[in-house]
């Protein structure tokens, strides 16, 4: 899924995740946000994302033992959180 500047942080997180989890990406991200941040998924902020990344790393490590995939995915999310923190990632 292509990422555009007009997308919210939540939408960009789902877009990055869909490269790994395909059609299950949105459900996965929603579940992580609701379970670990206890807030509506669409209200995800840059600060939330930083906290969420650690939970996502743990969750994905249950899905694969391939550390390169895990690290690539986490690196993309971290870059998103940096861009969002600098105001380049679109509205929360």
């Amino acid at each position: 899924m292509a990422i555009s500047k007009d997308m919210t942080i939540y939408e960009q997180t789902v877009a990055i995740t869909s490269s790994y989890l395909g059609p299950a990406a949105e459900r996965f991200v929603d579940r992580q946000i609701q379970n670990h941040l206890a807030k509506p998924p669409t209200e995800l902020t840059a600060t939330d994302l930083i906290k969420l990344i650690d939970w996502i790393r743990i969750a994905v490590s249950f899905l694969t033992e391939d550390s390169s995939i895990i690290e690539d995915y986490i690196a993309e999310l971290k870059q998103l959180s940096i861009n969002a923190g600098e105001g380049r990632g679109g509205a929360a």
Partner: protein
Amino acid sequence: MKQWRHYSLRYYSLLVLVYAIVSLFIPLNHDTRATYELSMVQAHAVSLIAAIPLFVIWFAAFYCYGRLQRYADTVRDSREGKAFRNIADGVTLLSWGLVIESFASLLLGALADHTSAMVAAAAIIQNYVTLVFPVVAFLLIGTGTQRLLALKRARLGHVGMRLLILLSASIAAIYSYLILHLMDHGQIYHLPVILLLVTVVIPYLFAWFSGLLAAFEMLVHARGTHGLLYKRGLDRLAGGLIVLIITSIVMQYINSALLSNLGAVSIGTVLVVDYLLLMGIAIGYILMISGIRRLQRIEEI
């Protein structure tokens, strides 16, 4: 929440128990026992031992449909929910069809052995029992795979579609020839030609075309789906479903058209062919189980 379809392994245990009991107590053909010089006890023991591979394959089938139904429940509110529900229901029917066909064969065979007046009725009932499950199952699976393709607004390629049509036409022509011209269909199917065509040949061809189309659509869907980790599960599920559909079709084709045309085929050859094909079906179910487990884990983490 567990629903009836999640009790697949309980149904399996009950069915195996009932089949074993029936196998042990059902009267066996006297001529067959005399040919192999077996006592009644020995004949029943052989019958039960011969059913063990069948029980293993039933286990794979029932475990698979239970897991698939559970996965379909998990994703029921998603875009793919209805599609996976259709596929799960189709696989469930195929699995139950395996068992019911075996029961029908056991009971109707015994009935025909002991009451010559029932030979024709037993053969007719057996044929229709064998036919009805794949017809409905492949229709359901095909509805599911079509829904999956529709989600992506994907279509089958022209080349692939034309190859599928050519394959189906070839299967239909050869099958019709075998059924109508080579064998004594009156002695085997106990039906007039027109009834045989309308109620056996056409439904089988419809089922096989539906099944092949569903297999092709599943292949296209799996190829067109992205998601590195998701694809690992989907590819196994799709591969297993394709193996299951094609092996089921081959088994039905061989059993309904080829074996009865081969004249003096020994019972051993028939059993070997059938068990090899059943192993292929089991491999399909095992691949599907592997894929479903990966997909289920993604939805639960």
